[in-house]
């Protein structure tokens, strides 16, 4: 293994080891204009978020005036910076974080992807009562993992207004990944609107933010190119279903300014490198609603970690990163060239960008965004070309086709033995028997629960299949090598090789027009908790009965994603379920207590949420 040096994230500060207390954290050096100034104080503001190292931290949640759009707005920030300071921990140490809430209302911090006791997980109402105004809550836990993670508020919609930051944990053992320099690349959005208003607007007019609807111009072009009959055929399913094949993001660049490490596309974030260096980029999607597609024109990226966990290296041109996911990549830039880090929003309504350069004066060309994609029958779960996409079917799931036939007939609306009232549903459903070996996913028949029928659910996938090797609408056959879940293999052997004892089916459901979201048609407020036995190994089967990607995050325990190799099952904390697709993962219920389990899209989370109790 090549010699590796540990560097601080901020190059200009590399010589300083900083044990920062409270607000004094601000002040790291940086380049370019700074959109952030402090609300009440006159402290110098940070261009790069500060990097806080050590094992004792004082974090202060407060407000700051920001100006990303030409209008001044109030953001919620930690230690005066947006994003919040990078926390750099070491595996094997115990960290203590004193978090003081200086907001006029309750707040909280959740350490996303960190395995810890439930009392430290930071979810108000489950882990603790939240942090009242003026109060300090002390988090303290052992760090038993390494990699790239993040932290954010779990109160209300505070994540949208700025309460998010990166966590980097250096491994106890020598890192299997060699690099000379690393940077956090945190992708987020900013809006001048009040998040409560955004939520209200979505409920009133769900396509409010969709600025890529199909127009009459598209229609004429299609008719000219394909003829009227073919155009009608292609569009009729969408029109009959009263859906839009341009329904890619609920909230878009219409209101969002996309940020890279807190920098607008106009400013751009800059990372420096020296000739010959291997640079590790720690991408974190800290956005609330936006999936990004990341590429660096001119550079191959070697993906070495997903959600903080090492994976077998895979070389790609591009990857899509779901909300709350993290990917670490290694790049080897040429010494005399500048490169653009380009992260376009999935709906191509905007992008975040940065520059990787050997010289701050040297810029790189910013590529054009790709054309706005169209969703296909595949994304509706209609399985038109599932033969090409059912990546697991080449392993053991030959009976998948039988399931398709059944689902096609719309007969399976009732789940025998289920409590149709909805409340007791999860518990009974949870006792389902196991089908399919660990690592290969489930071959269980897809059934839609009775609770999925009603005014609150507008579609059900007819033939959802595993599409792990599908890069997704907008990235298919784009001439670039795009990362898919099928590429993810644990660098180490599967930590818990047991077969699952039982399976839990959860369908991701909603009504886009009414903007209601739920699991199995039952929203959080009406749902009973999911109970897991301590230390049992279970399989969770997620079926996406909607037209959008949902990043599903289980707190407290790993989601061991079944990508077809039982020896090397990768561990994730957030699993994206593609539109109309299914995904399965294994969970070892080794963490006692109540945990949150939810879609990480902020405005889906109130409804698409379950409490998981391990006892």
């Amino acid at each position, binding site marked *: 293994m090549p010699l590796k040096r540990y560097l601080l994230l901020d190059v200009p500060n590399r010589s300083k080891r900083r044990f920062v207390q409270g607000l004094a954290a601000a002040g790291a050096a940086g380049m370019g204009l700074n959109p952030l100034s402090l609300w009440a104080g006159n402290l110098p503001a940070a261009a790069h978020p500060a990097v806080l190292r050590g094992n004792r931290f004082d974090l202060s949640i407060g407000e700051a005036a920001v100006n990303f759009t030409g209008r001044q707005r109030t953001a919620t920030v930690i230690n005066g910076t947006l994003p919040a300071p990078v926390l750099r921990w070491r595996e094997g140490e115990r960290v203590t974080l004193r978090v003081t809430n200086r907001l006029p209302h*309750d707040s909280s911090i959740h350490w996303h992807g960190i395995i810890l006791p439930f009392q430290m997980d930071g979810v108000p109402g489950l882990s603790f009562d939240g942090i009242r105004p003026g109060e300090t809550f002390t988090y303290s836990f052992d760090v038993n993992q390494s990699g790239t993670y993040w932290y954010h508020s779990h*109160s*209300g*919609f505070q994540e949208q207004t700025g309460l998010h930051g990166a966590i980097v944990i250096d491994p106890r053992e020598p890192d299997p990944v060699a690099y000379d320099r690393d940077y956090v690349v945190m992708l987020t959005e900013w809006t001048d609107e009040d998040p*409560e208003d955004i*939520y*209200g607007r979505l*409920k*009133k*007019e769900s396509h*409010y933010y969709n*600025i*890529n*609807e*199909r*127009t*009459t*111009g598209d229609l004429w072009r299609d008719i000219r190119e394909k003829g009227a009959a073919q155009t009608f055929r292609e569009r*009729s399913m969408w*029109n*009959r*279903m*009263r859906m839009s094949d341009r329904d890619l993001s609920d909230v878009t660049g219409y209101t969002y300014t996309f940020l890279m490490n807190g920098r607008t596309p106009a400013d751009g974030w800059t990372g420096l490198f020296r000739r010959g260096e291997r640079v590790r980029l720690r991408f974190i999607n800290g956005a609330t609603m936006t999936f990004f597609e990341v590429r660096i024109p001119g550079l191959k990226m070697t993906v070495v970690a997903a959600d903080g966990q090492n994976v077998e290296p895979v070389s790609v041109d591009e990857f899509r990163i779901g909300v709350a996911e993290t990917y670490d990549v290694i790049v080897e830039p040429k010494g005399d060239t500048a490169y653009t880090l380009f992260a376009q929003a999935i709906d191509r309504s905007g992008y975040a960008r940065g520059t990787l350069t050997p010289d701050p004066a040297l810029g790189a060309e910013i590529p054009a965004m790709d054309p706005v994609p169209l969703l296909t029958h595949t994304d509706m779960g209609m399985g038109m070309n599932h033969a090409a996409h059912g990546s697991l079917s080449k392993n053991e799931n030959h009976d998948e086709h039988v399931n398709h036939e059944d689902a096609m007939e719309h007969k399976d609306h009732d789940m025998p033995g289920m409590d149709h009232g909805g409340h007791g549903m999860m518990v009974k459903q949870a006792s389902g028997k196991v089908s399919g070996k660990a690592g290969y996913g489930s071959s269980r028949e897809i059934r839609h629960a009775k609770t999925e029928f*009603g*005014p*609150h*659910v*507008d*579609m059900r996938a007819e033939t959802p299949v595993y599409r792990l090797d599908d890069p997704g609408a907008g990235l298919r056959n784009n001439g670039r090598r795009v990362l898919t879940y099928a590429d993810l293999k644990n660098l180490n052997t599967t930590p818990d090789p047991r077969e699952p004892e039982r399976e839990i089916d959860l369908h991701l459901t909603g*009504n886009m*027009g*009414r*903007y*209601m*979201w739920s699991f199995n048609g039952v*929203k*959080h*407020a009406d749902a009973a908790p999911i109970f897991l036995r301590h230390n049992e190994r279970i399989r969770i089967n997620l079926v996406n009965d909607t037209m959008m990607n949902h990043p599903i995050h289980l707190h407290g325990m790993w989601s061991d994603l079944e990508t077809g190799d039982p020896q090397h099952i990768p561990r994730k904390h957030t699993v994206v379920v593609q539109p109309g697709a299914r995904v399965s993962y294994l969970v070892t219920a080794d963490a006692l207590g109540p945990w949150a389990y939810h879609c990480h899209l902020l405005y889906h*989370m*109130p*409804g698409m949420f379950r409490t998981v109790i391990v006892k």
Partner: protein
Amino acid sequence: MKTNLVKLILGFCGPLLSFASTAHMEDDPLLFSASIDELEFHETDTSGKNHEHPLVFAGEAWLGRDLHKLWMKAEGEYFDGHTESTEAQVLYNRAATPFWDIQIGMRRDSHGGVERDWAVIGFHGTAPYLIETETALFIGEDGRSALRVKAGYEMPFTQRLILGSEVELNFHGKDDPLRGIRTGLSDVEAGLRVRYEIRREFAPYIGVSWEKLVGGTADLARFRGQASEETGVVIGIKAWF
């Protein structure tokens, strides 16, 4: 009737408000929305009469949650500084299926000084091929009844420039001589409006509207020397919050 309307409003507002909660992550908050669907001047071309510029208003408002709402509708036509006709509805709106809502309530209208009260049962929603429809059955006093069917379709030329088209049919179940209405299909309306959304919530528009009295109702109008058909250019604004 007036007291009935007030009771209806209070009856539905009460439970809606009582569920209100201050929880931050409430998935189903109490929301209020109001919209002006049409606020327009008509430049009409009615043969044999002077040019007229009636002001037409149509709006809606609701208070409620995902599945249950209190819904109000109002329409009015103003002419030469006085009110020609008004119509108001107060309804309980219940989401019934993924794309359809049911509405039950009361309607009061006043046309040329003649007032009528109706009980309303209707449904509205999005039909396949994205056609917005609204159908309501009205049961009035003295055995009167009426049926209204509306359909609308939107075509975006660009993300902001949108053509809205709509048609409306009104049927009546009983003659109402005071209002010049005969049993059967009484009138047909159609409109094409091109709006420019400066913001999603605010759009000026220009368009054409066409209205025709039909059958016995048309005969009655002609007998009284009134026009039975009207085509006009409209200019107005559409707004909501």
